[in-house]
């Protein structure tokens, strides 16, 4: 029994790392722009489908690089045209807009690629199990961890050691002052949105290898991302990372003892956090005014 529990904890960390990747993109956008991006799942699905379309031309590795970039480019366009007019207003408008966008994305992907699930082909050496004892540690899951660690590492490095990152961090504290200091805030928000959507597109490509590729893939994965942010704390990227890992492990443990509750357990965690520490584990007070 302990073996099953340990396996599930370890596996939960792997899945949690993936949730964390999604949630980090969402958190970035929320922290700086105050926009609750319900369409994040839609961008994830789009990244996955673009990768599927590109694989015959550039192979899996080419698609892994190109699809998130294309998704981020689309994100930039949407930010400029649809979301920019809503800055400074009620966060509800942003939420409503992105909520509608989520539905549009789902129907557009269904229209272009069909309602049918599509077979996403991974390179063969990635899909085999690495050890007989730890059979659930497949090459692909290790690859996912490597990609997530690299992406998160790059994100934290960029935020802490580049000028853009410094401006983003400053902007989440006080955007007015940053603007007064001469930084082009519009470009800053666009780039930040683009980075967030890049993470979503990357998560999408990873998800397609793990799960089936269907138009509803985004809708299924968006809620754990929000829960990860709430549990980890609004305003804190490290909190979001920890939140993602926690809900992954919680889901894995629930599957051992009480399988019907694997989905419910993450919402129970969210409920407990909201009751006893509303700003989340590492969050800041009064994040959404």
């Amino acid at each position, binding site marked *: 029994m302990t073996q099953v529990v340990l396996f*599930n904890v370890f596996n939960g960390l792997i899945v949690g790392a993936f949730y964390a990747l999604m949630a980090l993109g969402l958190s970035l956008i929320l922290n700086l722009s105050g926009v609750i991006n319900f369409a994040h799942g839609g961008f994830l699905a789009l990244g996955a489908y673009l990768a599927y379309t590109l694989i015959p031309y550039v192979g899996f590795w080419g698609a892994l690089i190109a699809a998130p970039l294309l998704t981020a480019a689309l994100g930039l366009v949407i930010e400029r045209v649809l979301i920019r007019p809503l800055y400074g207003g009620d966060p509800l408008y942003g939420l409503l807009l992105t909520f509608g966008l989520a539905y549009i994305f789902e129907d557009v992907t269904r229209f272009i690629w069909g*309602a049918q699930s599509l077979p996403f082909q991974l390179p063969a050496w990635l899909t*085999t199990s690495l050890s007989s004892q730890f059979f659930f540690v497949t090459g692909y899951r290790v690859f996912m961890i490597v990609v997530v660690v690299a992406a998160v590492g790059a994100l934290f490095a960029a935020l802490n050691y580049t000028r853009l990152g410094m401006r983003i961090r400053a902007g989440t504290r006080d955007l007015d002052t940053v603007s007064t200091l001469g930084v082009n805030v519009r470009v800053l928000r666009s780039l930040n949105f683009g980075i967030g959507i890049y993470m979503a597109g990357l998560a999408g490509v990873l998800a397609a290898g793990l799960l089936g590729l269907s138009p509803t893939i985004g809708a299924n*994965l968006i809620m754990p991302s929000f829960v990860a942010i709430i549990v980890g704390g609004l305003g804190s990227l490290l909190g979001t990372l920890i939140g993602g890992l926690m809900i992954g492990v919680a889901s894995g443990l629930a599957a051992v003892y009480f*399988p019907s509750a*694997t989905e419910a357990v993450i919402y129970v965690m969210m409920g407990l956090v909201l009751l006893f520490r509303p700003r989340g584990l590492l969050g800041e007070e009064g994040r959404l005014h």
Partner: protein
Amino acid sequence: MTEANSRAGMDRRSIITSGLVLAAAQIASPFVIRARAADAVRIGLDNPLTGTYAANGKHELDGCQMALAEINAKGGILGRPAELVVEDSTSGDAGVAVQKARKLIDGDKVDFLLGNVNSALSLAMAQVSNEKGVLHIVPGGHTDAITGSSCHWNVFRVCNTTQMEANAVAGALVKEYGKKFYYITPDYAFGHTLEAGMIKAIAALGGERVGGDLTPLGSVDFSSYLIKAQAANPDVIVFLVQGDDMLNALKQAVQFGLQSKVHLAGAQQEMEPLEGLPPEARIGTWVMEWYWNQPGVPHVAEFVEAIKKRTGRVPTARTWFGYVSIWTCAHAAESAKSLKAVDMAKALQDFHLPSEIALGPNPVFYRAGQNQLIASLFVGDAQASGSAPDDLFKVAKVVSGADAAGPLEESGCKMTWPT
């Protein structure tokens, strides 16, 4: 300065007004009926076009449209043109399905109601169709209750019951692979009855259930369940999950290399998830309710060609369900020489489908007193590809429905007719 809340030309009032108008249009829409040919016979299809079951719903729709074209080419139903009114029931919202059913019956005045892929939605819609006395054909909702404990005189079902599927595959599994079974079951009506049916059929052959998990519908990660399954040391892991759940579970099981330790199988399989799987994951022993590659069986090849020309792909079992459903409506009307639901329902009792619709090697008929279509079941193994790139299933045995279905008394159906 942060961005001022300005939008050129649009102020808050106009946005709210346009929002209200849009909302009113949505609510008002049941009463805005497009002009239709006054004397057409209308068939209402209330099936998922969005969500998890969108692909299944789309294929059933393809079959319906194929049948409709053939019927109209032959002069329609009772000499009148036949028309299909399509509504999206969503994949899981019973409220929407029931609302659309009422809209079709009261607003569009359909003579027949078709639906639903989701068993639970089928049951909900059956309440409405029974209340209104409209002939209701369920193309692809599998839970036993539809023609069992919740059967109605006006509700007919094309696809198999979960018990029939279990009975068809149980023998093959126990004989070939062993007696210890672990179940991965979707946690809703269909899953529960399918697992119960499997346990009963396996137990009758000396097998036992060594464990199982009820997985939430729409689960994306099955690794925890697969870890537990492997730890229980079964001979066979039975995947009862369907659609995208089946796809994820099988994909992950093959990534874990479980197929080299344990045999993977299930009670119901369809082309839709098989096509979505990478080729190395197309494995396992399953039951299909209809398969396109039936060499030597009359009329099947023509049907497959016609569907390929119309939709660009081979028909799936769902396509056949939709096809049979529409043709059932036409035959019911022709046999009864009327569109009165009671007369048509009586005419369908023990009705045998003609071979160009049955499209299988055994006789296919609606069992009297239960309204359940007794068709064949195809037991076999999934394969990466066979004689053609879309030949994904190797049929080992065709079980006749009459053998797989238990006696009528066991179904629990007590049918009462209106006086």
